[in-house]
């Protein structure tokens, strides 16, 4: 049975446990209220941290520093390889080092507006406050940020803002911040506070007496199903863009940890809020395995254009200036090429839909550096973006110093995720969710250089405070992996593995995933409509049936088997895809990355409906896969930034 909006049952509204007081005092007030665990007692607690990206590694390191026993799990062969490593452009902080009138309030304001008024004000304000501490800490860790000749830190601009507040380490800011956090984590390993478990994939969350008390993982090398007990579980397992198959995420990034937590009762918030990044290298063939991002920072100097005429097949350098349409500069004169990502992506789609797209398939626009090279010289451009240009040339075989880059939007980040309160705890006591895996700070659209900021704020500066309060407030009797909850879970996982290996059909996991990804990209991607979303809700249950009849998963369950790993993730993607479509269908408005064709302004911009949809939609698993999920609303209130029609003109 397909999910249907008519069958959505509404349950009680959610309380985000937001602190009282003026916004600039809320986090301090909350910290004063939080209970603290004494140093002697911290060592009695074991904390399970899943994921070692910026949020997970920073949390594991910071908790180890405090004296907790931490077990850190990751899917890669080393914690250093988590997908945060691929973040290119930078990290925001309201330092106002450039004297351009930046402030905590301005970063807060930009983020709320950028998110199209679908994020919580208090969370975002705290994020802006903590941005200052992150930069201080990263510099103390030896992160080699770019500097001016005077020795002070350099900044650049990102989309959706009018100041320069982005700190960067060439085009590898994520790498350098992650290696800083990984170093801090490995220091705690050396000190005996953290134990690492690489090549493990979390397959279940274990609740005992209603509290998160453990996880079940698959050892990806031996195939063994292993259980681990803890006093709290922290998920920092990233986003779910790979549901689309083609995305800028790493191949192993997946939704399984958060999805299995959802199926254990954690609410999934705003699943339809996904970010399609405007500047990615276009697909070149059917065999394509992933898409590569070209950093948003390139829009500081690159100009986006397409030919004025439809189907103009001339070489870009032969198209004269007056026959080019620099459509972002034309439509948004004050932000120009630096409009937010959702706006840039939607406009790229629009010009391509008009038949003015370029490249072999007509699904690309130009990002042109010729003016910047003329104005500043080639060395300036090379110094700033050299590694990105090199990467572009390796993939496409074209030299972007001479020919404009061809770019097209691609799935990149997911604002939706598990619902958490202000303390970053889900509705399941003892289950905390950090970074991209939660839904908290970016509303319906994330601004560039804010993901790194959120991951590190959550891990270094929020969870060390809020976790202690939980541990000090609850009674946690000793449990072991012999409890029936662990045994039953292990058995169910082993059965699913056996079932996957036994189908022996004629279609590969990859074929099914491509098919699902294409469906979601077409109908739950850059623009959505009622008809398409209803079709998705009908189609996915059929695909699931076909999958269980026709899939071919080779190999054994006793050793390294990537096909088996990917098959398990795909089962969860089918279900997640349904929830995304349901969420998109129920939200009868457009906001940020969620663009419903029925709801747009005469100029084609997203048209919000604050009267009916100014809430977080958190979905509860109803207990079986056929029943339409249950909706919990968390109303959003805006005291400091008045919701308006977003304008970047």
């Amino acid at each position, binding site marked *: 049975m397909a999910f249907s909006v008519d069958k959505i049952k509404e349950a009680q509204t959610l309380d985000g446990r937001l602190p009282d007081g003026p916004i600039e005092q809320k986090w301090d007030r909350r910290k004063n209220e939080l209970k603290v665990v004494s140093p002697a007692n911290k060592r009695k607690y074991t904390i399970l941290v899943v994921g070692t990206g910026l949020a997970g590694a*920073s949390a594991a*390191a910071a908790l180890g520093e405090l004296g907790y026993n931490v077990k850190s799990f990751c899917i*890669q*062969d*080393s914690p*250093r*390889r988590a*997908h945060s*490593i*691929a973040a290119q452009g930078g990290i925001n902080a309201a*330092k106002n*080092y450039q004297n351009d009138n930046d402030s905590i309030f301005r970063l807060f304001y930009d983020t709320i507006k950028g998110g199209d008024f679908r994020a919580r004000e208090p969370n975002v304000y705290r994020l802006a406050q903590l941005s200052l*501490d992150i930069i*201080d*800490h990263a*510099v*103390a*860790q*030896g992160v*080699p940020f*770019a*500097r001016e*000749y*005077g*020795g*002070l830190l350099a900044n650049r601009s990102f989309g959706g803002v009018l100041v320069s507040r982005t700190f960067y380490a*060439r085009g*590898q800011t994520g*790498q*350098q911040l992650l*290696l*800083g956090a990984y*170093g*801090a984590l*490995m220091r705690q*390993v*050396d000190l005996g506070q953290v134990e690492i478990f*690489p090549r493990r994939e979390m397959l279940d969350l274990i609740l005992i007496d209603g509290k998160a008390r453990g996880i079940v993982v698959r050892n990806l090398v031996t195939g063994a199903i292993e259980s681990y007990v803890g006093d709290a579980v922290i998920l920092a397992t990233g986003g779910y863009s790979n549901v689309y198959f083609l995305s800028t995420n*790493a191949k192993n990034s997946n939704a399984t940890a958060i999805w299995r937590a959802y199926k254990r009762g954690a609410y999934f918030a705003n699943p339809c809020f996904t970010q399609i990044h405007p500047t990615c290298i276009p697909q*070149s*063939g059917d*065999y*394509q*395995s992933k898409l*590569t991002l070209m950093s948003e920072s390139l829009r500081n100097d690159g100009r986006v254009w397409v030919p004025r005429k439809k189907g103009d097949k001339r070489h870009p350098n032969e198209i004269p200036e007056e026959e080019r349409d620099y459509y972002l500069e034309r439509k948004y004169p004050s932000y120009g090429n630096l409009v937010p990502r959702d706006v840039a992506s939607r406009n790229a789609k629009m010009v391509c839909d008009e038949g003015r797209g370029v490249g072999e398939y007509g699904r690309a626009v130009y990002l042109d550096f010729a003016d910047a090279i003329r104005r500043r010289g080639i060395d300036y451009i090379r110094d700033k973006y050299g590694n990105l240009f090199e*990467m572009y040339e*390796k*993939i496409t*075989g074209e030299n972007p110093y001479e020919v404009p880059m061809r770019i097209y939007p691609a799935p990149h980040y997911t604002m939706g995720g598990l619902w958490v309160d202000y303390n970053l705890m889900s509705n399941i006591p003892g289950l905390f969710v950090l970074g991209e895996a939660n839904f908290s700070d970016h509303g319906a659209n994330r601004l560039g250089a804010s993901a790194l900021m959120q991951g590190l704020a959550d891990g*270094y*500066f929020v969870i060390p405070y809020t976790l202690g309060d939980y541990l000090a407030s609850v009674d946690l009797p000793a449990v072991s992996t012999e409890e029936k909850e662990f045994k039953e879970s292990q058995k169910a996982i082993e059965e699913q593995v056996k079932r996957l290996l036994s189908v022996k059909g004629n279609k*590969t996991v*990859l*074929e099914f995933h491509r098919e699902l990804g294409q469906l979601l990209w077409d109908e739950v991607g850059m623009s959505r409509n009622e008809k398409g979303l209803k079709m998705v809700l009908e189609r996915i249950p059929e695909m699931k049936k076909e999958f269980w009849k026709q899939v*071919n998963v*080779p*190999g054994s369950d006793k*050793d*390294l088997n*990537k096909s088996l790993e990917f098959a398990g993730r795909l089962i969860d993607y089918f279900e997640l895809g349904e929830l995304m479509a349901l969420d998109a269908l129920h939200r009868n408005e457009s906001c940020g990355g969620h663009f419903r064709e029925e709801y747009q302004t005469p100029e084609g911009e997203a048209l919000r409906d604050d009267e009916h949809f100014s809430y977080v939609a958190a979905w509860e698993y109803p207990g079986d896969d056929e029943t339409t999920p249950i909706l919990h609303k968390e109303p959003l209130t805006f005291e400091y930034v008045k919701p308006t029609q977003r304008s970047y003109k």
Partner: protein
Amino acid sequence: MKKLNLTLRIWRQRNANSPGKFETYQVRDISPEMSFLEMLDVLNEELTKKGEEPIEFDNDCREGICGMCSLVINGIPHGKLHRTATCQLHMRHFKDGETITIEPFRAKAFPVIKDLVVDRSAFDRIIAKGGYISVNTGSAPDANAIPVPKEAADAAMDAAECIGCGACVAACPNASASLFVAAKVSQYTFLPQGQPERKRRVLRMVEQMDREGFGNCSNHGECEAVCPKGISIMNIARMRREYIKASFS
């Protein structure tokens, strides 16, 4: 562009305890626009369809930054293209009809897990001994309190670009991890924040490198030649100076 037909000789090995051997496969109609790993994806899809076990190889970001991909391609870690990780190598650099030999990174300290996948956890254990600055969260001064000359920051960044893939070890006749260790030591040597632990860091990291069974550096320079990030062998000279200074003071 013309499609390629290729012969692949690929190392297959059940696990660390079984002997491995080369198997030969044919792939047809490979687009020159494909990446090397996408070409292997195509082969794996064919093997799966035929009911055979696909070839296991490590990979993740596929954009040259996570360091998870490896492979020795025609005798060269990450293949012949300069400063390029395997995942960024494209098929336009191969010729129609070519035979390509694909092996795992080979070193005593990197045991094979399966087929082309090796265990590089020795690198984590080296980093645990000093690949960081020992600052606890929450105690840092303002980020601009300590100016760092641009030249020093740039030099630190050059060293910090290492992706920890292990190609340097695979290319070295002695299977030395010197370039990997030296890159980390150098990054912090350039920065004021790295000074307090300068001696302890280099002594502990080098000691762990030896304990893991990596060989010594004898200046072949193969490591720099294959490094996908172009980490300079000058870093090894710097690490040695640091090590000697630390040993005698």
